């Protein structure tokens, strides 16, 4: 045997996430597609809702942000396991001593990181287009978005892995994923809306939705870790 023993769980997950991000940094193909799509969604809505320079209601801005997150995130998830499928790299990964849960969490972390970058660009753009200032509540909005991204990626990575070899997996991914993530979108949109309301921000309400998202994330990540083992099995 070569010297050394398999690294710890967290180190394995970070190595897998790092591999995905290094590949993406080199090509930027998924990130560029996600960001482009998100910008297009925001622009379309801005033309639809911004009338003669009037600021749209906070609920509308919030809804647009979360719809763009879902649309661009779906693109990222659809490609999340593409590199494992090509050349059957997934087999090498599953044969390695890395626990299945570490593989899952590594993929989740990489997907969430790409979504977070896209969402940062998007939030800035929405602020400009909709004359909405996020500065005063930046931390709280970032927390809501971050929690929403983790929950979305946690559910999405499971379906993305399950559909690894399925035909029409892009369409199937959205069909299976969207009903599951409805609570995340509702909680995120409501919470964000309450935070960015320029007249009467409701911090207590936003705190409730933040706590709700924490609970959903714990549920989704736990279920994802549990479900990934049988999904990853080749038989």
């Amino acid at each position, binding site marked *: 045997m070569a010297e050394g023993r398999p690294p710890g769980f967290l180190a394995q997950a970070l190595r897998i996430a790092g591999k995905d991000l290094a590949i993406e940094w080199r090509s930027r193909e998924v990130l560029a597609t996600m960001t482009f799509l998100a910008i297009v969604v925001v622009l379309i809505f801005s033309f639809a809702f911004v009338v003669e320079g009037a600021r749209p209601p906070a609920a509308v801005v919030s809804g647009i942000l979360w719809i763009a997150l879902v649309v661009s995130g779906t693109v990222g998830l659809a490609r999340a396991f593409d590199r494992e499928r090509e050349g*059957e790299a997934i087999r090498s990964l599953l044969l*390695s001593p890395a626990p299945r849960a570490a593989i899952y969490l590594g993929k989740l972390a990489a997907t969430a990181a790409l979504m977070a970058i896209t969402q940062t660009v998007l939030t800035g753009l929405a602020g400009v287009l909709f004359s909405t200032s996020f500065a005063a509540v930046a931390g709280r909005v970032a927390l809501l978005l971050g929690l929403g991204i983790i929950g979305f990626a946690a559910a999405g990575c499971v379906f993305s892995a399950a559909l690894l070899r399925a035909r029409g997996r892009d369409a199937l991914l959205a069909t299976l994923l969207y009903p599951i993530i409805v609570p995340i979108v509702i909680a995120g949109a409501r919470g964000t809306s309450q935070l960015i309301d320029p007249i009467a921000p409701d911090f207590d309400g936003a705190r409730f939705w933040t706590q709700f998202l924490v609970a959903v994330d714990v549920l989704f990540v736990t279920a994802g870790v549990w479900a990934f083992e049988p999904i990853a099995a080749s*038989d």
Partner: protein
Amino acid sequence: MTAAPVVLAKVGKVYGGRRVLADVNVSFQPARVAAVLGPNGAGKTTLLGILSTLVTPSAGSVRWGDQTLGRGSPLRARIGYVGHEPGIYGDLTAGENVALFAGLYGVGDGAGRAPALLARVGLGEARADAAARTFSRGMLQRLALARALVHDPTLLLFDEPAAALDPAGAAWLTRELAAERAAGRTVVLVTHDLAAAAVADQVVILRRGRVVFDETRPGGFGADALRALYEEKTRG
């Protein structure tokens, strides 16, 4: 290297009600090359999947030394696998692929170990920094072997490694199989290519999921004898 054989006892596998393997009793010895032969659908790849721990048998057990070889077993870290697909990341360079898997296996200084491994399989410095997706089929198989050897495995599994290799690549593969045997590894080769199997000391022939021939001849069977044997055992 561990000198323990890998022993399959009454191993069976059923997929959706269809029996793919039944009552397989075979052992694979260290420092030997075993070729598993058989027509399409005989269960060869399933057998290799069970040995690799990626497929769970429906019946029987696989023992390696005093431990059971199965999913989640720490013995997984001592298995190397080369499939007909290379199992590497096309967007990473050859060196990065080797270093990535070295890291996952906990091999110290994976990046430092990569050049020597790549040189050993014939992918020298000139190719180490090229993206794997630019490689020919033969080069990908060489990289797949480097990836499979990065953790110095005791059990080395090959699934149709000669598929799509040119004659020079096939000759290289034969030399590699002999070299791995000389290094003391337990080598199991699943193939349709009787020329590639001629290097084997042990031949196992499967037919309809059952072992119809299992014999060891140190020094090999010879290509002509192997062909005659194969036709006899798989006829009808």
